[in-house]
């Protein structure tokens, strides 16, 4: 097992009102088998022992499915690897003596809570605007009652894999949430259960996305490149298609 020395430049910010700054840290004996977040755990243990404030960062599952760990590592959302969330990134990606710059996702719609933690409730409000289907709850209906073609089911599932991490917003030069909103709209609008509220959903979610202060999509496709689950920008095309259908 090889151990490395890693230099960190981490964004520290007390709260949304206080301006932040970068702090430099040096970590010795970083194992190549550590995940990126485990490396930050080691940093925090060290900071706590020194009586300093640990670096606040979001995480939950640490297995790439919850979408909590959105941070920008050396200028790339979730780090250098494709289809990999920050928690699934391992220190073997780096070399001894490397300097790693860690920043929070930067977007007006994602205000900083503390250090690397941002408030992503703008995404929740986009979902509240129409990212659901209205059905009477009660006993679960028979699963095969509504037939869904295999292709449709596959496409809908691909869009449904969005974990809402906000990496797309973090990486977009315009801070656009088009991939997130597009994936959520395309997921529900492609399934039979999503049809009754299709037009209303599309308009409401698009409007909410804009209201939250996300930027415009310029088709950079950087969002697709950083998406930890690899959602294609065809989701954005689906959203535009459904938007045109909704207004005419």
């Amino acid at each position: 097992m090889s151990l490395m020395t890693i230099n960190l430049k981490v964004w520290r910010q007390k709260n949304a009102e206080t301006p932040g700054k970068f702090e430099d840290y040096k970590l010795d004996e970083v194992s190549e088998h550590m995940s990126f977040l485990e490396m930050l755990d080691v940093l925090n243990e060290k900071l706590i022992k020194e009586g300093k404030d640990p670096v606040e960062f979001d995480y939950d599952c640490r297995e790439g499915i919850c979408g909590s760990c959105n941070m920008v590592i050396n200028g790339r959302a979730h780090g250098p690897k494709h289809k990999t969330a920050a928690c699934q990134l391992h220190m073997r990606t780096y070399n001894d003596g490397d300097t790693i710059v860690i920043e929070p996702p930067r977007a007006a719609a994602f205000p900083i809570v503390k250090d690397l933690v941002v408030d992503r409730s703008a995404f929740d409000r986009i979902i509240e605007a129409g990212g659901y289907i209205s059905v009477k709850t009660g006993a679960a209906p028979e699963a095969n009652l509504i037939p869904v073609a295999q292709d449709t089911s596959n496409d809908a599932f691909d869009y449904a894999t969005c974990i809402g991490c906000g990496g797309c917003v973090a990486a977009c030069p315009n801070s656009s949430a088009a991939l997130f909103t597009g994936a959520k709209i395309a997921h529900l609008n492609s399934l039979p259960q999503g049809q009754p509220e299709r037009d209303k959903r599309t308009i409401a979610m698009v409007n909410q996305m804009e209201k939250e202060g996300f930027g415009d999509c310029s088709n950079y496709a950087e969002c697709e490149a950083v998406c930890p689950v690899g959602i294609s920008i065809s989701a954005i095309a689906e959203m535009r298609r459904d938007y045109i259908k909704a207004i005419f």
Partner: protein
Amino acid sequence: MPSLIEAFQSQVGRKILTGLTGFLLVFFIIFHLAGNLAIFGDPDAMNSYSQFLHDLGPLLWVARIGLLLIFVIHAYIGISIWINKRKARPQQYKVYSSKGGPSKQGLSSRSMAFTGIVLLIFVVFHINTFALGDMDTVLIDGRETHDVKTLVIDTFQNPIYAFGYTIVMILLGAHLGHGIWSAFTSLTLRSKKASATIYTIGVVAAVLLAVGFLFIPLYIYFGGGCDAALINCN
């Protein structure tokens, strides 16, 4: 449901309009280039084409106003996207880089606002030079018409015009390199395979259009106007 006016002011509506107007502008410049190439035809070809356009009368004005409207909408939305991005990210990253792979970030896509604004300013000068410039008249089919051809040949013997136009046409190529594919994507192209093909076609078309446009001023300048082999003045 929003009204159509409201809908086209939304983020998604604006992007669809940008794609649509961009598309129409690409069609326009293809026709424009075809017209320009008439300079290599018969001595009267270019001025006959100009006379044909003027003979359209009110139709020409409909086309001009339509074109102006398309151009203004395209530029207005483009600039507003550029202003919006500042508002959407007030604090920039210390380090930022593209992850590559499917990303279309590059010199062309990142400079859309710059190349677009240069083109906007260029168009004003361009119209002033060639549409409103002082022109002699020549007789075509027994009728007097503007001698656009001589104006073009005279203008591009000036190195400032010849090289200035060349630089702007390179920027046009850069704008179209991302723009053509982006217009398709804005107009809801969703197939991954088609997208890859159209991206390549878009880049090739951008290069061809830029080279087509910049060849004329450079050829006139280095060929010495009417002395150039491919240009027949009388």
